[in-house]
């Protein structure tokens, strides 16, 4: 009966039903609850389906259900940020790229907030987004930055499409795609053109104690922060500065600065909203062309091919892609 009310009742009835079902979730345990909630959460394809859970500062997922699609705002701003961020990310992919959620089949967007103790990270675990509160000293809560939310969701898209391996250049390409669509979501929400965007990733994520503008700069990799405690942003923006390391899965968050800047260079050459042309080329490459082991050079060539298919061989768009990659030392 509760399921029926959750499906068909008025707004107030649906909320009461959700709350009752949430209590059931706590009683019956995660696996059963997920199955149950998944079935009642089903809606017609092409609509947003968001759920937010609260891990209560422990390390178990998904945690307690605290907000679902259409339910009223929470008193907890972290919950609302995760919910809103998933919504705007869904909208960009749907309205601009005609993609129906992470899997293009209307997958529900699950997020967990308040994960772990002073946890200074966010991640995609293959099924859902997870956000820590930060330590409060160096890092704020990770839902504060909408591009971080979109970054994590895009890892899901990459998982379902190119399946890029999370190691070395393929891993850095995986990371870069998450930064690219993370930045596009931020620009989309602000209605910004490429020339007006700041191209920072994770703005406001650092506390005031840190001398930094954000985690990364797509425009000028290596300049996002320079702090006595955290050190200096290690990202290169050109192949000649490529960092060889075993840490961080072969520097996936470091060398992503190179393709990040290639996207920025392409987008500013094309002008207007970055999601219109540069975003389309990157999206189609991600969806149709990239493979699990695609490296930077492969990717640059495939994006040239996509630009030719979408806008014509020798088009201004294709030239912008070529010049964008050439700026970072990859001549096609």
């Amino acid at each position, binding site marked *: 009966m509760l399921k029926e009310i959750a499906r068909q009742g008025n707004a107030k009835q649906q909320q009461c039903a959700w709350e009752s079902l949430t209590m059931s979730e706590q009683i019956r345990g995660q696996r059963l609850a997920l199955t149950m909630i998944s079935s009642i959460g089903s809606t017609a394809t092409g609509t947003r389906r968001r759920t937010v859970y609260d891990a209560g500062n422990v390390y178990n997922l998904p945690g307690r259900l605290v907000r679902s699609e259409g339910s009223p705002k929470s008193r907890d701003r972290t919950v609302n940020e995760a919910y809103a961020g998933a919504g705007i990310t869904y909208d960009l992919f749907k309205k601009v790229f005609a993609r129906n959620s992470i899997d293009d089949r209307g997958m529900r967007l699950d997020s967990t907030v308040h994960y772990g103790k002073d946890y200074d990270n966010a991640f995609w675990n293959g099924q859902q987004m997870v956000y820590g509160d930060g*330590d409060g000293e160096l890092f704020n809560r990770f839902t504060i930055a909408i591009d971080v939310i979109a970054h994590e969701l895009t890892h899901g898209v990459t998982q379902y499409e190119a399946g890029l391996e999370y190691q070395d250049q393929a891993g850095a390409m995986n990371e870069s795609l998450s930064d690219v669509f993370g930045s596009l979501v931020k620009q989309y929400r602000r209605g910004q053109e490429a020339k007006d965007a700041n191209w920072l990733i994770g703005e406001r994520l650092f506390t005031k104690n840190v001398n930094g503008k954000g985690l990364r700069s797509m425009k000028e990799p290596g300049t996002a922060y320079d702090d006595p405690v*955290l050190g200096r942003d290690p990202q290169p923006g050109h192949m000649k500065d490529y960092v060889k390391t075993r840490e961080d899965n072969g520097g996936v968050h470091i060398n992503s600065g190179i393709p990040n800047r290639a996207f920025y260079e392409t987008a500013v050459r094309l002008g207007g909203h970055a999601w219109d042309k540069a975003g389309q080329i990157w999206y189609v490459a991600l969806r149709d062309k990239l493979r699990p082991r695609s490296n930077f050079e492969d990717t640059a060539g495939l994006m040239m091919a996509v630009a030719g298919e979408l806008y014509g061989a020798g088009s201004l768009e294709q030239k912008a892609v070529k010049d964008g990659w050439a700026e970072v030392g990859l001549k096609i």
Partner: protein
Amino acid sequence: MKVCFKRTGGLAAISLSVTLDTVGLSEADSKRLHKLIDAISFFDQPQSFTSTMQEVDRFQYEIMAEAEGRVKTIKMDESAVPDLFRPLLDYLTELARVKKK
């Protein structure tokens, strides 16, 4: 006892590390560290805990401990960390943060 801890990876890719010698710690910190190491039978644990899943933006941990002539290094992917290790990891992370400040 000596303990070296390092955390790498994560969305921000900013590493944390700390090297501790219980001789130089306060009595309370020394006792706590010994207790946490003993609680998980550190020297009897496998050398690595590796995830079979591809989980992005997650941390990797490395802990080296040296005590009574025994030395052991354990490497862990965050998603493969046994619950048993969490108190030790939280404590070492806290100490590494204090050192960074």
